[in-house]
């Protein structure tokens, strides 16, 4: 893979941030777009733009053909033979919501079990949490091991005859862990014969060779914008017999075959689930993105990113204060590196506030205005670390763009007791020089936040000054 050549395809990489050449390390949030994708979208809008599946004029036929062609390419890219099983949605979130609303509400009821992991993205957590809250289904949450892998023993024990859904990430957006999805699916089939298996592939399809047929799951969801496509186009793949039995998620145009006053007949797959005018140019752009990745070869993409990740982990391990989350072995992970940096510990303030023992309750008459329940125990710990937001802010001033926060996986942060984290993530256009710039930037972060010793000496000086101003207790 010739990365310098690849970089030339991404116009945005020429940008400067705060006067410095940009280093983009937030591809797990969204990838940048090559000119091949931008051109494909532009060409369509300039020459063939029209609505699809409507009328018989030349433009509409061209647009419909372009959309169908994109769907075929995408199906082939992820190892799907039946193109009708590829449903265009906005993104992974919408794909999973479609399953939760249509299949979930029909098939999961009170007492049924949903098995998922603690490391799910909110998009594969909240829809099931809400379904369970609504109808009394039981959420069984599988933890991750110390190495950041799904705890397969707990996963096995969680599966029962009552399990209606088993769902897990393919690649964790925080830990970078690659889940053994084929094995997990097989285990679910054996121990939970009633269960449908849904895999969240948002972080996998952009970075790994993915063959959905080989995984053997029932649903697989991914987003276009993380794999060089534009935002607003994603894919839900579902097994045909399951999709056929599901009611539509949204009603309207495009998803019908006939509409009479008393009755409507649904369209065939995939249109049954694609109500309204779809994101035509988004799908065409995603088709071009798939062409681009195909040309590179997903094996090569994986190989290159693994090498880059190995380099980054080595470099980061040399900064003593940096703690990296997720598997130690690069073979088990993708180029998503979440980390935190130990700083100096917070000193108690030296004023005269009454300090409450946590076990002493507040005066009951105190009015408490709460926005939400807060698990503050784990978050207080984060005062020992340089706050992730500040890391991202200072790196930004150095032209290095990373993500900070809970990265849409707050339950995992609470489980690990780590609070918000900083996250650097790579893609095909990143280089070892980018990693070096990250490391340099982190040195700058450490400089700004100083060391414990520096703070102590400063405080001492301040106190000395204070004494010279108040020489009231002099005895002669």
């Amino acid at each position, binding site marked *: 893979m010739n990365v310098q050549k690849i970089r030339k395809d991404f116009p945005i990489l020429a940008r400067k941030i705060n006067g410095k050449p940009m280093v983009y390390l937030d591809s797990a949030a969204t990838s940048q777009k090559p000119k091949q994708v931008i051109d494909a979208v532009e060409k369509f809008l300039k020459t063939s733009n029209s609505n699809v599946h409507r009328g018989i004029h030349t433009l509409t036929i061209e647009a419909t053909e372009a959309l169908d062609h994109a769907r075929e390419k995408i199906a082939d890219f992820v190892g799907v033979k039946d193109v009708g099983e590829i449903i265009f949605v906005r993104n992974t979130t919408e794909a999973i919501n479609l399953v939760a609303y249509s299949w979930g509400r029909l098939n999961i009821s009170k007492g049924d079990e949903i098995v998922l992991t603690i490391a799910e993205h909110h998009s594969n957590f909240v829809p099931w949490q809400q379904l369970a809250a609504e109808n009394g289904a039981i959420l069984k949450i599988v933890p991750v091991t110390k190495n950041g892998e799904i705890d397969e023993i707990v996963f096995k024990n969680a599966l029962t005859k009552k399990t209606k859904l088993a769902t897990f990430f393919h690649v964790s957006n925080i830990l970078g862990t690659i889940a053994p999805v084929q094995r997990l699916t097989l285990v679910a089939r054996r121990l939970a014969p009633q269960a449908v298996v849904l895999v969240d592939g948002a972080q996998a399809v952009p970075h790994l060779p993915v063959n959905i047929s080989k995984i053997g799951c029932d649903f697989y969801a991914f987003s276009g914008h993380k794999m060089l496509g534009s935002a607003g186009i994603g894919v839900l793949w579902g097994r045909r017999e399951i999709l056929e039995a599901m009611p539509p998620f949204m009603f309207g145009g495009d998803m019908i075959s006939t509409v009479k006053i008393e009755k409507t007949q649904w369209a065939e797959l995939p249109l049954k689930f694609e109500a309204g005018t779809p994101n035509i140019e988004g799908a065409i752009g995603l088709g071009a993105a798939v062409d681009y990745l195909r040309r590179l070869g997903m094996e090569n993409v994986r190989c290159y990113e693994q090498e880059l990740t190995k380099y980054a982990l080595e470099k980061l391990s040399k900064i003593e204060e940096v703690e990296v989350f997720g598997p130690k072995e690069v073979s088990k992970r993708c180029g998503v590196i979440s980390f935190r940096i130990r700083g*100096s510990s*917070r*000193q*108690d*303030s*030296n*004023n005269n*506030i*009454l*300090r*409450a023992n946590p076990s*002493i309750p*507040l*005066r009951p*008459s*105190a*009015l*408490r*205005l*709460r*926005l*939400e329940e*807060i698990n*503050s125990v784990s*978050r*207080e*710990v*984060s*005062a020992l670390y*340089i*706050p*992730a*937001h*500040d890391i991202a*802010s*200072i790196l*930004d*001033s150095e032209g290095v763009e990373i993500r*900070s*926060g*809970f990265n849409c996986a*707050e339950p995992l*942060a609470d489980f690990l007791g780590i*609070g*918000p984290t900083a996250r650097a993530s790579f893609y095909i256009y990143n280089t070892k020089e980018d990693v070096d710039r990250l490391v340099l930037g982190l040195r700058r972060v450490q400089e*700004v*936040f*100083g060391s414990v010793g520096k*703070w102590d000496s*400063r*405080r001492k000086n301040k106190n000395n000054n204070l004494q010279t101003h108040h020489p009231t207790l002099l005895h002669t």
Partner: protein
Amino acid sequence: MDLYREEILEHWQNPQNFGKVIDADLVIDQVNPLCGDQVTFYFKFARGRISDVSFTGSGCAISVAASSMLSEFIKGKSIKDLEKLTGEKVLDLIGGLVAPARLKCVFLPLEVIRRLRLYNGKTEK
């Protein structure tokens, strides 16, 4: 790098009024869902004024420093006056150049002050 001035970092490292007022009259939690920053403010009132204030929580250096500075500023002020507290005034207190992305961090404690209104009428003892 103006944002990370020594004064800000001092307040982060050694926040003023950090802790809980045990016999607080009012406790307000505020969260910035964007970054997970969280503060809890504890207020005591006397004759319509804030007689004591403290805060706990965790967040970035900017939101902690802003909470610390603001807690110093509001002590002894009347709730009525604080209703007029503007974002500009808070930025003045912070005294640094704040990038748009970090305004939410600076304004996290201001959101708390804004919600003081909800306690209206119960502050007289």
